[in-house]
């Protein structure tokens, strides 16, 4: 190597080492940990993080609220009230929210965004339950047992919704279940729901009583053993009616256990059930399960508002000049038929609670003017509009005057399951078991609370009375649609009902596109 070459060589050497020094060449620089996020998969080499597990179990409930209503177009509540004869879809105009309109008119198609989103929500809940069940081992640790029992309870809850809405749906039970799954026969889904609920009870992981729940647990209505039993009872009633299999004894066992637990009772003031100050956390003895909402500014579930959007959706459109009411968008309006049903029974207390009216129909003896909880809008001189599907009525159960507005966010929880529903399910169960007197007793217990004269019917008339009582008691609580289907009355009672679909919704096209094993429901 001559001198010149050596200089060149040395220079290169120096320059390259410069480059190495200045740029900290290590590729470790590219490992940047995320700030403020937990990694998805638990590290198997570390001890179980019980706080994390408990947090995740609580997190499963946020999906109940999310499934219920957190986007303007896809409220389960508005959708299934509109699908039944309780309400029409409403809104600003045809096409304002086609999801609700299609539910009401039975013009659903597999590309309807309401269909797609409801499907997604319930399944994402199932996915979360599966992840929790698979991510943690089965160990005799209270927190873990409770979390797993809750995951099973909620998975059953989601499948119960799915099977009612969509019928024979795919049934992933493992977090490793990925894209392709076939339809599962409805009976198998029922069997799985019942198994999950029974397992949750049998695991002994759940608190026995609401009294064992912390205030935070009460705020999100975490499940106790009786929550699960109440649902199991309802599932058996549906099982018996929808599938025409005799599960009445099973239903009775669970529902009576709930009734006899001493955990629940009817509140005296019917209307107080829908007050943001009378939720389970405030000691409402009738509440069994709620979708929890908050109006805390800035709270959201990954971009999804945490407030009760239904209240805004259903408020009176363009309302001006009615003190205490902020108005809303006029969706989900009670029908004349529903109002007529109350009038026929002279049921003014529940009509008051269920319906807000522009001007009351001249019935039930001039509507006992002084008892009106919301005096008619017209007499107050308020202005509003009802541009589409005018019925002159708005939902009274989630009316805005009870709840301060916070930028379209209402804190009012929604009642998913309450004790009077249990009693009416018991009445139906006892009727089918031939115990008419017991059945009548439950019906009259419900009627007594709203100062209606007791019934004394028997036979078919008694069954009709039980059904009528369910209609009036649970109006605008999304029960009616499936009640009518399982009683075989949907075609008769629901104006636009399409018999060809049996009341089932279409499986979303996008799901069919990614899952070749999946078949569309009949009638679509």
């Amino acid at each position: 190597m001559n001198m010149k070459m050596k200089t060149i060589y040395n220079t290169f050497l120096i320059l390259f080492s410069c480059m190495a020094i200045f740029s900290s060449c290590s590729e470790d620089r590219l490992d940047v940990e995320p700030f403020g996020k937990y990694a998805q998969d638990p590290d198997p080499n570390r001890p179980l993080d019980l706080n994390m597990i408990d947090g995740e179990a609580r997190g499963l409930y946020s999906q109940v609220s999310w499934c219920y209503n957190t986007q303007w177009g896809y409220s389960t509540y508005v959708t299934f009230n509109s699908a039944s004869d309780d309400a029409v879809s409403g809104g600003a105009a045809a096409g304002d929210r086609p999801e609700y309109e299609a539910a009401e008119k039975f013009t659903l198609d597999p590309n309807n965004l309401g269909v797609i989103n409801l499907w997604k929500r319930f399944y994402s809940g199932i996915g979360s339950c599966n992840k929790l069940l698979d991510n943690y081992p089965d160990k005799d640790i209270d927190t873990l047992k409770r979390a797993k029992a809750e995951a099973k309870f909620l998975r059953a809850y989601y499948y119960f919704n799915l099977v009612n809405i969509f019928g024979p749906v795919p049934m992933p039970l493992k977090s490793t279940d990925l894209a392709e799954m076939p339809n599962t026969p409805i009976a198998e889904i029922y069997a799985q729901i019942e198994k999950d609920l029974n397992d949750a009870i049998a695991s002994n992981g759940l608190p026995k009583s609401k009294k064992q729940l912390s205030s935070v647990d009460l705020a999100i209505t975490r499940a106790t053993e009786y929550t699960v039993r109440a649902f199991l009872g309802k599932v058996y009633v549906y099982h018996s009616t929808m599938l025409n299999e005799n599960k009445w004894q099973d239903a009775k066992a669970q529902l009576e256990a709930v009734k006899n637990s001493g955990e629940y009772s009817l509140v005296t003031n019917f209307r107080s059930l829908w007050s943001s100050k009378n939720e389970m956390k405030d000691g409402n003895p009738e509440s069994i399960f709620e979708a929890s909402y908050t109006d805390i500014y800035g709270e959201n579930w990954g971009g999804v508002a945490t407030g009760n959007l239904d209240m805004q959706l259903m408020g009176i459109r363009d309302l001006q000049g009615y003190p205490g009411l902020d108005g809303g968008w006029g969706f989900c309006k009670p029908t004349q038929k529903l109002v007529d049903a109350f009038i026929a029974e002279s049921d003014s207390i529940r009509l008051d609670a269920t319906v807000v009216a522009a001007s009351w129909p001249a019935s039930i003896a001039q509507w006992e003017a002084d008892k009106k909880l919301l005096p008619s809008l017209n007499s107050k001189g308020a202005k509003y509009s009802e541009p589409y599907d005018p019925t002159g009525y708005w939902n009274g159960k989630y009316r805005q005057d009870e709840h301060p507005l916070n930028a379209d966010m209402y804190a009012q929880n929604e009642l998913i399951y309450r004790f009077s529903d249990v009693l009416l399910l018991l009445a139906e169960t006892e009727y089918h078991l031939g115990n008419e007197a017991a059945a009548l007793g439950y019906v009259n217990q419900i009627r007594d609370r709203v100062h209606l004269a007791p019934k004394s019917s028997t036979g078919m008339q008694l069954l009709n009375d039980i059904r009528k009582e369910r209609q009036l008691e649970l109006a605008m609580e999304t029960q009616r649609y499936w009640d009518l289907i399982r009683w075989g009355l949907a075609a008769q009672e629901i104006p636009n009902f399409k018999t060809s679909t049996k009341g089932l919704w279409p499986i979303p096209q996008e799901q069919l596109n990614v899952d070749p094993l999946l078949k569309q429901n009949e009638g679509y």
Partner: protein
Amino acid sequence: MVKKMLLLVTFLAGLVQLYAQDRTITGKIVDEAGNILPGATVTLKGTTKVTVTDLNGVYSLSAPQEGGTLVVSYVGYTSQEVQIGESNTVDINLQPDIQALNEVVVVGYGVQKKSLVTGSIAKVKAEDLANQPALRVEQALQGKTSGVIFNQTSGNPGAQVTVRIRGVSSNGKSEPLFIIDGMKTSKFVMNEIDPADIESVEVLKDAASAAIYGSEGANGVIIITTKSGAGNKEKVTVTYDGYYGWQVADPVAVMSTAQYKDYFREAYAYDKSIEASNSIKSFALPAFVEKVSYWTDAADSLIFKYNTPAYQYERVRSIAEPALQKALTNQQTLLSNGSITQKQYDNNVKAINNKLEALANLRPLTFEQYKANLFNKKLNSPTDKAYANIRDNVDTTSNGTNWMDEIFQVAPMQKHHISVQASSEKANLYLSASYFTQDGVVGGAKNNFTRYNFRLNGDVQATKWMKLGSNVTVAQSKSRNLPLNDLYGGIISAAMSHDPTIVPYWNDTSEVFAYYRSVGRNYTTEAAREDLLNNRLLKTEDGRYYSNTTMPVNERVNPLAIMQLSQNDVATTERVIGNAYSEIKPFKFLTYRLSFSGELTYVTNDNWGPAYKLNDTRQRDYSYVYKQIARYYNSQIDNTLSFVKSFGDHNVSATVGQSAEQYIGYSVNGTRINLQELNESWNYLDAVQRPDTLSKLRDDNGGFKDKNTKMAYFGRVNYDFREKYMFGATIRRDGSSLFSDKKRWGVFPSFSLGWNVHKESFFNVPFVSLMKVRGSWGRNGSTQNVDAYMWISTKTAQSLGGAKTIVTGVTKNEDLKWETSEQTDIGVDFGFLKNKLTLTIDWYNKKTIDLLAKPILPAWMASSSGDVAYYNVGEVSNKGLEFDLGYSDNIADFKYDAKLTATYLKNEVTDFNAQRLTGYGAHGAPFEATAFEEGQPVWYFRGYKAEGIFQSWEEIRNYTYTDPNTGVVTLIQPDAVPGDVKIKDVGGTVDPKTGKASIPDGKIDGNDYTYVGKPMPSWTFGLNLNGEYKGFDLSMFWYAEVDKEIYNNTLRGDFLHLNRAETFYTNRWTEGSGTNDWMRARYTDNTTGSTQIGFNSLFFEDGSFLRLKNIQLGYTLPVSLTQKVQISKLRFYVSASNLLTFTNYTGSDPEIGYTGDNNSKNHNSFGVDRGMYPSAKQYIIGVNITF
């Protein structure tokens, strides 16, 4: 600020030194053809003596008695040095600088001779940028180079510009990479760069040229080089540029008060008659036939009350009569089966017969009679409330308000820029300071943008082998943000739609309370009235109140009130961008360069405002203050080693390098409510001194932290043989922390070839002075749609009803990787007539794969909020042709040049399962005005296809569908009335072959959405014309876009009772005198699927336009005059921008890019006009002074 600038001028002017003279040299400077060259610079070498030739090309300069060398320079000519002999007269001939041969272009980590470039690189020089007073460099670049499309996102001061190089290559962002003096940066930085500081801009269009930027080059690269001090070593040059201008907007016309009243009387009557005939339809429903009481109300409807217009007569009769007859028959059945009593039967039959009689007595009224009837009666049923509002409203005698006139105003703008260039053998220095301020044509000073900018560029030849240098900018920009381009609550959309029958202000409280009484709020207690007046009502500066309308308006309120409410929203950006480098040159052929670059940005957002009540929707119960400070720090280290050497006829250059980058973002923000005092001095968080329950609830704070890192190794080699055959290759290996360690690294190669045909001995075409053929291929990446941790699956802490919960994330995708573009470019460069005429043609084919999208996955794989991970799916193709034609010449003293650019683009999504990407379009579900779908242009416009307007009932009856299976004929639009839009039945029935619902089904619904336009123009043209004659200069710039559509989305379907564009009135269909191009007056869209308003192709308008973007006339004073006051150049000019526009588009501005918020992912809303802030006409007077 202006004072400071003047001080600086004085100081810098002092640097210009003066010397005593010895002997006077004079002479004439001419070009090769003997044309005189006025304004040429003549310098005595080695001294600071300098002069400029006068209008006759004559100079005069003092020189020492003996010797001396003159240096003569003139733009466009090669500088020449001439020894001074004994004669005192020295005439000099200058030779034109054939730029195409000697010009150098910046190519990223180096420079290259333009004649050897094998890729497609456009260069725009400082003097090309100078003839247009642009705030941002992108605006100055518009139309100057083919293949690049620049569009306004808004006309408001400080708004971003949309730049697309060679089309749109992604479903997400497709922003080019911006490089300033070697530092990677973004378009957001352009707000803080003064175009006057820019020496040149290179646009790397093809993949091979951009390949040196690897994973970020896929959407092209814009390289900005700022000015340096290098240049005239004889003299310090001080330059001042300044202008003052007025901006005048030309907003879209809305209906006048009189037109509005007329229109809505008509609309009201139409809708009433339709409503009435619709209620008749319900007669036919089973329930109505059964139960007479159900339809008594309906039957009592307007048809019977006010008779019926001829317009609906036939329809009413044809529906009602059979229905009533059927009901009559049904009563008989009901009686016979015992469902009703005889008495009920009698009553029902009587009622039905009454209706039948009424029906028989119906006499058709003319529409005018019907309208008059309607307006003379009072309507009281609850559903008439909204109608009553309209009727009351159009019945007023008020002359009303033109809200557009109220919000638009003439707005000033000005700029001052001063710079100093100094150069010596050892060091170069460039210093500049500038001030720019612009008011908005909406809101004036409330919509102001102001920028201060300081720059220091310097380099020092420290030793023979080492050079050190630095480029630094310190800038502050401040913009006052009004809600402008927003369909929901923006000022412009509010002004377009607000009730024109009311006055803008109320003078006293009695008017305020009269309004609240009229909407049913009586404020009976004194306390309530006090609260409203003192704490809620927004007052103007002179103590008046903002008016309101009784019409339902929700968030669309008095636009002047929105303006006042929003005026305290100020965003301040403080930015330091700079680099420091050293270049070591141990041998002549080898250079090592180390460079550190950094960009430190603080973005501060300040906002505060009072409690207010404009109506029941738009109100706030508390005053508040909001603060945010975000700090972003980008740093970059580059090491490069460059080698240049010739081996005989073989010329080789090579560069290897290594680069590392880091980004850290950090932000805190806070809100407090209930301010102690409502003024600017209490505009900070601690100003709140009375926390209460409400306050606790609303006081809020937040923040984020973010970091990512990148590393790269790259190399490039260029080879040529006698500058005749060229070859180039580039490779870059990039690593990024944005991806999992499986997919962290990517390799991006490129190759290119070129052939200078004119250098061949066999090539002998006399008029062709240059012919180069070139081709390139390369691959680039894009990470701009990837967010940090996008591939990771995380759990997130959230709160539910006060409980802390943890929710699971999406199922992770560790295989997430870059979007990759692959591009082939073939180009040819011609020079004719000694390069007076130049022509460049490029053809390219660019394919982008691995787009990022959220596919439909089984929902159980989604997160708690239904989200799924991003996956790499899909492919986009962009193909295009680009032409750059230039000609420059002179006729005696008249010099002129012309440059025409033309760009053709074909943009298509070539692989994308449409089912995989829903819910992402502009406008939002259920109607997505833009869609990303295979076989269509990127984010094309999708809607109902309008096939004109129904002129008569007959046309409606003839618009039928015949079921192929049953032969049953049905009306396709059964609810339509004359004057409605006829919608094409595109699809509905599934085609068994394709599985798509592409066969007409006789129904108009979501299946009938189809292609109704595309936002990107097929053709864009730019034409620059420049002329100079004896000190006068004139330049003109025309810009055109051809074959594109704009979605005119300013009218909301749910607010059809409000005002709208004048064309709705002037072009409307009316009975008897129908036109076929616009719909009847209407204020509801009660059609199923909302076919009539907004979603049909009438609203997707032809957006082609031709615009005189700029015209400028300047005059340079004779040097003989100005040099007496030591000024070497003094030029005055007047300029007008956006002076003329030729377009069929009825909206405010056809030059529309991505609208909406600058920072959001609004890539899907190109060409969506939501009440666009139009580009203003700008009239400017300015001066350039060089000392």
